[in-house]
């Protein structure tokens, strides 16, 4: 047999994403690539706790928002570099994830999902009323000299893209590593049945907690980047249920529990919503979201396993033939 040169599909994906902004120099396109990386990365993070471990979170905006606010407040109040803020935000989000989700892990299914939603809403309310962080008014991040230290770039979006790409890669590789190793097996065992998992020695609470903490940490990193990119945040932007649900939607749309799912989902939804906003959003009538909503309904109805389901079906057909051939 001929030995074919074969690259890991992830390497191909990374390569394509990385060169795209250098091929297409359009500023809108660069913006879309950055938003794509942020949301695909958030999807990867969310996938760890919900896709792998089966614990549905409707409150990931909380971790995203904590990341955004930690670096922003430190920069705004004390001129601390957003990089240090990012690290502190990650630590804080991880801590919050541990403290609030630990008592929730005894809740099953929807009860857990609603609890995450409630927690995120409470955190939002706190930030809306908290004067030190400028409450509902939000914070405009002071414009400083551009450069890596301030994580601000005013002449080109490429540096933002590269930072987003770096964090995205870390998120994907983390999810990939988890999936391929002991922790991935354990999380999937927890998803498919808590009792069976406990019986073979899996400390289900501990592993769910780890998954939630890792997921929160990654989400927070994107929060900092988002704040530095938009240069303005308020609680309604970063803590809103819309962010939580967007993460859920794109991952489920692409394929829940697969590292390719969020990438596929974000690659469809983000350009769709950003381009429709650019072309139709000017009317201020929400045509973009009408199309968006209808599309999601259509995918759910006709491709219930997500876009990835189409590929899987093809593969199964092929494998089915092979299996039949092997047994006859």
């Amino acid at each position, binding site marked *: 047999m001929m030995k074919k040169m074969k690259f890991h599909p992830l390497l191909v994906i990374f390569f394509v994403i990385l060169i795209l902004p250098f091929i297409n120099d359009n500023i809108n396109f660069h913006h879309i690539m950055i938003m794509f990386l942020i949301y695909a990365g958030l999807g990867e993070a969310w996938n760890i706790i919900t896709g792998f471990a089966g614990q549905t979170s409707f409150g990931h905006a909380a971790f995203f928002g904590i990341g955004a606010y930690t670096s922003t407040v430190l920069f705004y109040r004390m001129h601390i570099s957003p990089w240090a803020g990012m690290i502190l935000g990650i630590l804080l989000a991880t801590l919050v994830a541990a403290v609030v989700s630990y008592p929730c892990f005894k809740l099953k299914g929807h009860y857990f999902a609603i609890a995450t939603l409630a927690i995120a809403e409470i955190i939002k309310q706190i930030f809306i009323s908290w004067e030190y962080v400028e409450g509902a008014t939000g914070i405009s991040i002071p414009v400083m000299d551009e450069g890596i230290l301030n994580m601000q770039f005013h002449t080109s979006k490429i540096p933002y893209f590269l930072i987003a790409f770096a964090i995205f890669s870390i998120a994907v590789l983390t999810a990939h590593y988890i999936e391929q190793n002991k922790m991935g*097996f354990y999380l999937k065992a927890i998803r498919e049945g808590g*009792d069976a998992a406990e*019986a073979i020695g899996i400390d289900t609470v501990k592993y769910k907690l780890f998954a939630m903490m890792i997921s929160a940490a990654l989400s927070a990193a994107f929060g900092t980047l988002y704040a530095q990119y938009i240069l303005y945040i308020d609680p309604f932007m970063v803590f809103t249920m819309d962010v939580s649900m967007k993460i859920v939607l794109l991952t489920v749309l692409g394929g829940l529990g697969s590292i390719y799912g969020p990438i596929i989902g974000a690659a469809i939804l983000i350009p769709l919503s950003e381009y429709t906003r650019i072309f139709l959003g000017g009317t201020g009538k929400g045509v973009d979201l009408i199309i968006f909503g209808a599309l999601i309904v259509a995918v759910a109805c006709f491709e219930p396993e997500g876009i990835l389901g189409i590929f899987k079906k093809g593969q199964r057909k092929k494998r089915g033939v092979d299996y039949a051939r092997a047994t006859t």
Partner: protein
Amino acid sequence: MPEPLLDVRGITMKFGSLVANEDVTFAVNEGEIVSLIGPNGAGKTTLFNCITGFYKPHSGRVFFNGIDITAKPPHYSARLGLTRTFQIVKPLKEMTVKENVMTGAFLRTSGKKQAELTAMEILELTHLAEKSDVPAASLTIADKKRLEIARALATRPKMLMLDEAMAGLNQTEIKDAMELCLGLKRKGITLLVVEHIMEAIMPISDRVVVLNAGKKIADDVPENVTSNEEVIKAYLGERYNAKSKKS
């Protein structure tokens, strides 16, 4: 006399006003096959759940290898080397057979290669090797029961607790299961087995514990248990007598 491997002392478990287990005491020594029998609703599965930490008993203690495991979470006893299977099999449906068993093997190793080796070895032992890449959901019930045992074995237990691992199997499959139990005993694994099929369990058991209405009514070698008046009255009835005379 050496200290028993599993020591169950005075377990009582209630659901509301229903007493499922009442002051049950028994022990399993290292290397034994002990079977736990009793009519439907005698409290066997409840007792399993109390021993392995799925339920917290109202009173009584459970010691494994000298360590108090009462009301400890199930994963704690599994780590100590006490692993159970479920009467209603719980395959990890979206994983393949091999991945199911690897998940068990990860208890003793973090390396994927090592887990894979352990899994393949156990799949050979349980005659599942040729189905290793089949999704667990598509197995027959007999194979799912085997997988349940295989996954438990992959945790390298000192002692294995099987909850009706033979129910629903045909004669050849039961023979296979009996062979497997004896094979495990030779490997030094202690077994506690809940079973309904007397013909299968009596020949391989070193000792039989009988539960009736939550209470222990007998604890003896198989020959004595089958002739025990109370046991016959409570449970075995004519059926086993008739069958054992025939053979």
